[in-house]
């Protein structure tokens, strides 16, 4: 190219300064690239100047080379700086355009929920497991012997009457009009597991039996014919009512918090002697903290131990039972038993995976 062979230091310096100034003003990658093409491309003053160095003398060559190196570096630095600035701005603009409303509900596969009652029973089980006890399960259709006789309920005990207990028809009764005793009932209490446990597992024995029980109460705000209890039984040498109180206090605290405690009141049950009503000190009782009835307990009646072939002079034991529905009603301020038994999803969903 004619006329391009002259190295003009002033011209190239001015061109580069002009280019750098344009770079600083650029705001897009396209503009920036155009500036680069104009001031550092093949036809640019800078490239022409570099080419022209070849025609210079040795000394001039050195000086011109140094100048060109500096100019290229200045240009390149300015370009690089601006390039990353513009890139960052571009990216920010792009990502900004992707903004969404993060508060939109996202629930492609909603979680379901556990029913609070079995969850509560699991909590109770865990307490006993943590103390080294076993969890025992017995049949819900149970023999009268395990549900009554073995527990010191005589054949004429009021609890054995038809108005309290669901009786099961036996095979021999299928064709008869009236009910003929099958010696089978829907168990009225999880205490039916006591003698099963003692016979099957022997002593010493520490078991809790959570489960479903049945009584012929019509469903109303506080009663349900099908409900749940947790029975606990410990039989060993040297167990006393003091140990019973210790375990009850622990259960109270686990279920109702650190301020909860238990109290025993003299009472009567066929399968315990001494017997007691179990009261709970309930810190969150409506109208202020107070005692409320929670269950029954006592020292295992010697006749129950004898039913399992265990010598009551050698072994002593304690037992207690609490109603799970009642515990749940109290804990969660549930006012109506219907909510617990009807299976309305709106009730269960309040609890999700816990209680």
């Amino acid at each position: 190219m004619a006329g391009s062979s002259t190295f003009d230091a002033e011209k190239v310096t001015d061109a580069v300064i002009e280019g750098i100034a344009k770079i600083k003003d650029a705001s897009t990658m396209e503009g920036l690239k155009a500036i680069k093409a104009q001031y550092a491309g093949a036809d640019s003053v800078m490239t022409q100047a570099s080419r022209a160095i070849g025609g210079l003398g040795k000394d001039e060559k050195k000086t011109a080379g140094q100048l060109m190196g500096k100019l290229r570096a200045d240009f390149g630095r300015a370009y690089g700086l601006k390039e990353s600035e513009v890139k960052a701005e571009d990216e920010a603009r792009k990502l900004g355009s992707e903004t969404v409303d993060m508060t939109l509900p996202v629930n492609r596969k909603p979680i379901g929920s556990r029913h609070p009652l079995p969850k509560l029973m699991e909590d109770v089980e865990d307490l006993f497991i943590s103390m080294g006890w076993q969890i025992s399960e017995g049949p819900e259709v149970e023999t009268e012997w395990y549900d009554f006789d073995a527990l010191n309920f005589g054949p004429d005990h009021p609890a054995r009457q038809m108005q309290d207990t669901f009786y099961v028809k036996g095979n021999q009764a299928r064709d008869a009009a009236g009910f003929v005793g099958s010696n089978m009932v829907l168990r009225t209490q999880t205490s039916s597991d006591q003698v099963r446990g003692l016979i099957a597992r022997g002593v010493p024995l520490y078991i809790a039996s959570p489960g479903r029980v049945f009584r012929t109460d019509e469903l109303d705000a506080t009663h349900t014919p099908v409900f749940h209890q947790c029975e606990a039984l410990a039989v060993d040498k040297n167990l006393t009512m003091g140990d019973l109180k210790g375990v009850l206090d622990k259960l109270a605290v686990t279920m109702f918090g650190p301020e909860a405690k238990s109290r025993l009141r003299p009472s009567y049950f066929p399968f315990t002697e001494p017997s007691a009503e179990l009261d709970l000190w309930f810190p969150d009782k409506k109208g202020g903290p107070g005692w409320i009835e929670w269950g029954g307990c006592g020292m295992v009646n010697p006749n129950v131990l004898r039913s399992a072939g265990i010598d009551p002079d050698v072994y002593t034991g304690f037992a207690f039972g609490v109603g799970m529905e009642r515990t749940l009603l109290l804990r969660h301020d549930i006012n109506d038993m219907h909510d617990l038994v009807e299976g309305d999803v709106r009730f269960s969903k309040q609890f999700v995976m816990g209680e």
Partner: protein
Amino acid sequence: MPMIDIDWLKEHVEVPADLTYEQLAKDLVRVGLEEEEIHASQVTGPIVVGYVVDCTPEPQKNGKTINWCHVDVGDEYNETDENGDKVPRGIVCGAPNMAAGEKVVVTLPGAVLPGDFKIEPRKTYGHISNGMCASERELGLGNDHNGIILLNHYDLSKEEAEALKPGDDAMHLLHLDQPVLEINITPDRGYTLSYRGVAREYHHSTGAAYTDPVVALNAKAPKPVVEGDNGGDVAVEIDDGNPIHGVPGCDRYYARIVRGFNPDAPTPGWMRRRLIRAGMRSISLAVDITNYVMLDLGQPMHAYDLDKIEGPIVVRRANAGEHLTTLDGKDHELSPEDLLITDSPNGVRASRILGLAGVMGGLYGEVTAETRNVFVEAAHFDQVTIARSARRHKTPSEASKRFERGVDDQLQPAAAQMAADLLASCGGGTPSDTPVDVDRTQARTRIDFRLTETKRLTGLDTSDERIRQILEDIGCAVSEGAEPGRILVLPPSWRPDLNDPCDLVEEVARLVGYDEIPVTMPPAPVESSIGLTPNQLRQRQVADELAEYGLVETLSYPFVGSADFKAFGYDEDDIEPVSVEVANPLAGDRPYLRRTILPTLAQTVQRNIRRGIEDVSLYELGHVYLWDPNAPAIPALPGGVKPTDDQLEALDAGLPEQPLHVAAILTGKAVETGWLGERRAVDWTDAVEAMRRVADRLGAKVQLDQPRSRDVPAQWHPGRAAKVMVGDVFVGMVGELHPHVNEALGFPEHSAAFELDLTALFSTLNGKPVQAKPISTFPPVKQDLAFSVPKTISAEQLKQAIVEAAGDDLESIELFDVYTGDQMESDEKSLAYAVVFRSPDRTLQAADTEALRAAIVEKAAPLGAQLRA
């Protein structure tokens, strides 16, 4: 349950003058008598004493005569006249006994009487009546409504009546302001169904001085004529031909006669008030007295008209076919277990029934308004005999309530003495000196009691001296035992519940106070500690998994009936004989227990849908009950004795199997994406997926075995249901419910379900740790294989063929497309699998892959499957 009136309680125990009912309840609960309720007074004042200044009869057009009276009710309540002077109130009173000069009970405006009867000034018969003069009935004090209460003739001493001034508070005077405490009695403490017993318990709780009224009464009772002797008031025979459990129905019959009784004598006001406050009605003096003695001492009594009775009195069991009409007018067909009181008219022994012993009297022989000679019965009957009769005839009475729980068998002479005294003092009768006492009561056995027993059972450290003192205080006779540290304890006659050392321990512990028992912790049973069993853990996993998958856990009652069977397409003739049947169901239309969970879970789903809830997907874990019509009968065995191994086996052999199941029903929309996209209706795939999640969580290897349409049970869609199998073990069903079932239950179309027998499923799991395979690091070869197969071939069948053919070199296989349509024959479908081959020990070459494909094609061929191009 008994009502406790402090005023009555004071007869036997010293109570503080300021004792409140709240404090009384606290004192009694400490020793085991629980508060049922403190019944507040139903009356509010002002109710005051009034002096009738004048009384002017005014005949009315309607034939009635009313009295226009002026009654001085004291300065505070009197009216003010136009001069500002206090003047007596004007009151209209219709009572015939109203008269000037009487002292009456005036209920003033603002007062409220029982039945929410509000007293207000009212205009009547041309006057403003500014208050009301009250009768007993209006105040809730009795039944008398023949006239108003005239205080000069009402149960007050002359001095007391004279001291009453107009305006004095009549509320307190008549005990109208008093609440009453109702307590609960446990079945072992029959003696606390009496003031005598409650007063003793109050003494135990507070230490207040107690006097057993029976001591003085016994001292007063004449020496009776005993069995076998002549000359008693009436001949009495006990002739029990049918004792229950070998226990005679009556072991004591005590009879006493009171002659010359005035049947017109009224029951004194104090007695009526006490009876009414105890929740009883006042009937007639003789009957009221027997009730009063029962409430006071705990001895149920019966009063007969002596002149209607012909001896001997015979206590016997009923004969089959005999009938009795009881006092309440009901006719009862008697059972040979019923114990009767009979007499012997015209010399025919035991031929006329007077009553059902200890339960209720008959119509014949009772005291009436003409009775002048009264025959009082105080007997002791067997608890079981009375309980059975009361229940059999559905006639629980105050008497049977006490006999069922056990009555003191040494109380009868004292009770008869008290009744005789009252019949004499209130009714002018003369008690005989020759009561009859047929006494066959047995001496109690002394309890051999180790003094250390209290500590052994309760942890209480009570001194020997205190233990003896407590036992004596409850009425036991304590004597030295065979060796030091042992005592012999004879329980009192009113405590039939005390028979074993542990019974005495309870007495000591409750009187020392359960609160005094030191709190300890039992040892941790390290050796037997096993944690939750694998199946208990698995049960929790199943429950958690389904909730996490999006279902809601519920619990349903296990009762089913024909409506449920019909809705689920069961044939009642098939299912009822293999279902457990409840003899006394609450709902007559659901007498059976479920054999599967789905029918009862369906009830819960229905309830939700009816409440307008959509997309209901529920699950339930619970037991089902499988009746075996050929199961052996279960023996009846006594308690207190360990059955033999054979007997234990027989107990369990007769019980139905009760496996644990889990079931789920899915309805409505399956995917709740909301604004994110379209919803999809539930179908069989959701049920299969949920079921598989359960299986996978447990590590169970389940396969689906789809029966031919005609072999699918009626509950399920014939083309969209499969058996869930683990190997050869059937563990459940999954699929869409039959359209008829969905329709019958009101469920959306395609609603799906599954039910698994968890007991069976768990038993297929060995619980052993997973044995890990080595992970190959050689390169994979990924290939897609699409086959055309007859529609009758299941995806599972083809997959199994591929898996078998590829052997160890197959790493994974996934079905990615199912196609039927234009490009396929009408009886064929296309199944496309993405497979990954990878060798455990080398890099697979092209020839290896070719060989694998060839092997797969060959293995698939017998299924009619052909590799598509």
